[in-house]
């Protein structure tokens, strides 16, 4: 028998052992990695009160965590989007270690920490995100904004400029630079930055309102007034789009949070954007009156009146003692010019909510629109009594009394209302008109001056001036 050479045996054994060690090490590493992913899974909080789709998605993600790294990211976002701070933070921090090259994890962790007020802890995560994803502009914006709030204005300016280097027309970066310039008293710089922001987004209300302040400081009152009007027309402040955090909405199963997300869109008249969260909210809680109301108002905004009517009528049926539901619905009837249905709905609402000022006021308006002023009077009186801080009911009550030739009552309400709200232009205009009618030139003149100072509508002031001239034969002051 041929003898095998010992060196060959040793070599063979060496190879086999080497292969074994390699395989064992690889398996060991894989096991360790699997254990690490498994350990990264946050302890499940009590989810008993949560909807089944959420619990199911959490359970499915948990089951996959040790063999599918994507699942931990899903779990983190599920907890984040539904208000589970500790669990989401735990998962994100684990992801930072296990998946260190993915920029979304520090970005989302920063968003989580910042939303709960822990901005100093968010800052390193924001820096990390910018390092990993230098081209992702929302991360740069968040970093710059955070630096402002952490009282590092010079670094913030540099961060805004770095952002403008990659997105030269970024209006939020211009807004940030403008507020820093305004804070430092550099009005011209602030104005320039805000004008650039508005040139990019003419409906950017935050830029308009800050520009109104700058114009005021510069003594440009007319320009300030125009900016204030643009700010109001622009609607609510909008955060800059951030696809990575905006995607969290798809993980949300909290009906109220979905309603809040949608309200953020509708407040700036982005109706279509509000549909997905509201539709999800409706699927989670089909009998939630609030969702029906919101969705109805979205369709109203979109001009889809039949759908709006259907949803708002359902909202009233679900919550018949909520006066706001009737008030929403009246807008649909008004848009459809269906006054009889509006009156019927308001009557039902008043039967169940007799102490609601808004319902009394709307009902009075509907009665006035159908030429029933006598019937409108008690409802205007009720609206005024129930909400004395709102002047419109008093204004309409005064004019209705005058229309019905109930002069003494009109004068009494006018006097009381003017004492309570001495700068409300309609009261001043009506009081001036009354003084003219009574031949009191001095009183009328004084009220015209006050009405002008209070910013009464130019048409009303012109009318008063004409009446004054006709009655007293001289121009109004």
């Amino acid at each position, binding site marked *: 028998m041929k003898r095998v050479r010992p060196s060959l045996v040793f070599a063979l054994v060496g190879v086999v052992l080497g292969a074994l060690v390699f395989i064992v090490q690889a398996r060991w590493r894989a096991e360790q990695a699997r254990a690490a992913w498994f350990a990264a899974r946050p302890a499940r909080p009590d989810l008993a009160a949560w909807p089944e789709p959420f619990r199911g998605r959490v359970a499915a993600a948990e089951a996959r965590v040790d063999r599918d790294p994507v699942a931990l990211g899903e779990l983190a976002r599920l907890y984040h989007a539904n208000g589970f701070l500790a669990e989401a933070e735990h998962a994100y921090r684990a992801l930072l270690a296990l998946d260190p090259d993915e920029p979304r994890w520090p970005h989302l962790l920063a968003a989580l920490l910042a939303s709960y007020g822990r901005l100093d802890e968010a800052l390193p995560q924001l820096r990390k995100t910018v390092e990993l994803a230098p081209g992702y502009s929302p991360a740069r914006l968040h970093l710059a904004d955070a630096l402002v709030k952490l009282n590092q204005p010079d670094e913030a300016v540099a961060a805004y400029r770095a952002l403008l280097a990659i997105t030269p027309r970024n209006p939020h970066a211009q807004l940030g630079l403008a507020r820093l310039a305004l804070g430092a008293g550099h009005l011209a710089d602030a104005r320039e930055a805000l004008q650039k922001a508005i040139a990019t987004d003419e409906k950017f209300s935050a830029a308009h309102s800050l520009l109104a302040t700058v114009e005021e400081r510069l003594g440009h009152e007319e320009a300030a007034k125009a900016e204030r009007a643009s700010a109001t027309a622009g609607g609510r402040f909008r955060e800059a789009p951030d696809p990575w955090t905006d995607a969290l909405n798809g993980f949300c199963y909290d009906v109220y949070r979905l309603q809040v997300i949608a*309200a953020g869109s509708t407040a700036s008249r982005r109706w279509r954007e509000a549909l997905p969260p509201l539709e999800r909210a409706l699927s989670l809680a089909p009998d939630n009156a609030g969702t029906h109301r919101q969705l109805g108002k979205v369709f109203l905004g979109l001009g889809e009146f039949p759908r709006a009517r259907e949803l708002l009528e359902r909202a009233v049926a679900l919550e018949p003692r909520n006066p706001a539901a009737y008030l929403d619905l009246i807008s649909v009837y008004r848009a459809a010019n269906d006054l009889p249905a509006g009156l019927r709905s308001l009557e039902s609402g008043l039967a169940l909510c007799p102490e609601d000022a808004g319902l009394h006021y709307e009902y009075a308006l509907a009665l006035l629109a159908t030429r029933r002023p006598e019937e409108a009077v008690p409802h205007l009186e009720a609206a005024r009594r129930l909400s004395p801080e709102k002047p419109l009911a008093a204004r309409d009550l005064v004019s209705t009394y005058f229309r019905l030739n109930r002069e003494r009552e009109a004068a009494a309400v006018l006097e009381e209302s003017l004492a309570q709200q001495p700068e409300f232009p309609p009261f001043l205009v009506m009081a001036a008109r009354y003084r003219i009618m009574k031949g009191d030139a001095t009183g009328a003149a004084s009220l015209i001056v006050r009405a002008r100072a209070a910013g009464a509508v130019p048409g009303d002031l012109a009318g008063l001036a004409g009446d004054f001239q006709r009655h007293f034969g001289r121009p109004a002051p």
Partner: protein
Amino acid sequence: MNRAPVMPLPVFVRACCLASAVLVATTSGCRRSEVAVAAAASAPAPSVFHADYVRPAPVGAPVEGRPWIAQVTTVDLDGDGLVDILACEAQKNQIVWLRQTARGKFEEQILAADIAGPVHVEAVDIDGDGDLDLLVASMGQVFPTNEKLGSVIILENDGHQHFTKHIIADHVARVTDVRAGDFNRDGKPDLAVALFGYDQGEIRWMENLGDWQFRSHNLLNLSGAINVLIADFNGDGAPDIAAVVAQQWEEIHLFQNDGSGNFTDKVIYGSTNEDFGSSGISLCDLNRDGRPDILYTNGDGFDYAEPGARPWHGVQWLENLGHGFFKYHRIGNLPGAYSPVGVDLDGDGAIDVVAVSGFNDWKNPQSASLMVFQNDGRMNFSPHLLAHAPTHLMTLAAGDLDGSGRPVLITGGFHAYGPWDRMSRVSVWRRAAAAPDTGKK
């Protein structure tokens, strides 16, 4: 040749895995027991607080309609030795005085009924005649508007609690707070003013020129100012101003005074969450180190959406580290948190933090309207529910109303939205008789 038996590879790997599993299990077991020991060591003693620790009693006029009490504060307005309550009724445009005529007996008087949307009143002797005048912040209209309807008003006391109205600033952005401090050290109290506005707002200080004349100095041009606080925050001997601005800014600013009325602005806290909901700040030396700290709530839920809470609402404090530096600490969660007050409620020598909720989920009867965060003396806070009702509490004060050395809480109900079934106006909360004492005082 006899070869040593070789363990089959799968067995070897399984053995390795088993060993590693044992190792992991042992290690985790260690960790668990360590955690358990640590938890046992740090387990807090049972708290004296419970849901019936303090009980509310209405004072003053009864609830009629839907009260809008925007603020309550305590002061001995008539100097009779009994602490009274002042309140702002923002819907009825009233400043009311709940005068304590005898211990525990209150008589309500309307001091002013023509101040549009009053939301803050502060008693201070502005004219130096020895009686307390009233500084009033008037929003003009509480609900959002860009109209310049705000005013700063001083009600001058003739010494017999008859008041004459002085309008110090008018047709300005809606005013939410006014406080007094002598910023330029000329011996006359000046004013720090928060103008919330809506899209446009401001922080300013108003220099007292005498004879009810004031000159305005702008400090900050951001909307959403809620509160101003005056204290020597940086320890240089001059009164500084701290202010919180909400809206999309969500920041707390410190305006450091050089002693002559020249201020330097510094952001001492901010959130990039534009829905953070800053709702108020108050002064309190929480850690008793001699430096004024700032208590801070975020709980505003009345903006663009249906009123309600957010998961990040809660109570926090900014620890004053000296020289204008502050450190943020979260105290605890409270949906809809408003009006933080530092007070040693259980008499254990450590200042607890009490806060109310203005925007909780009131359809759920278990939602908290009053909570205390009990301080263990080392600035560790444990939350305790004090009440579920009345609901919609937007303002809180604490004072020794009874002269017993024990604090009494005072709350105000602001019922701008439903449900309307657990309403209150002004309530005083005293300890329930059966409540156990800590015995540590």
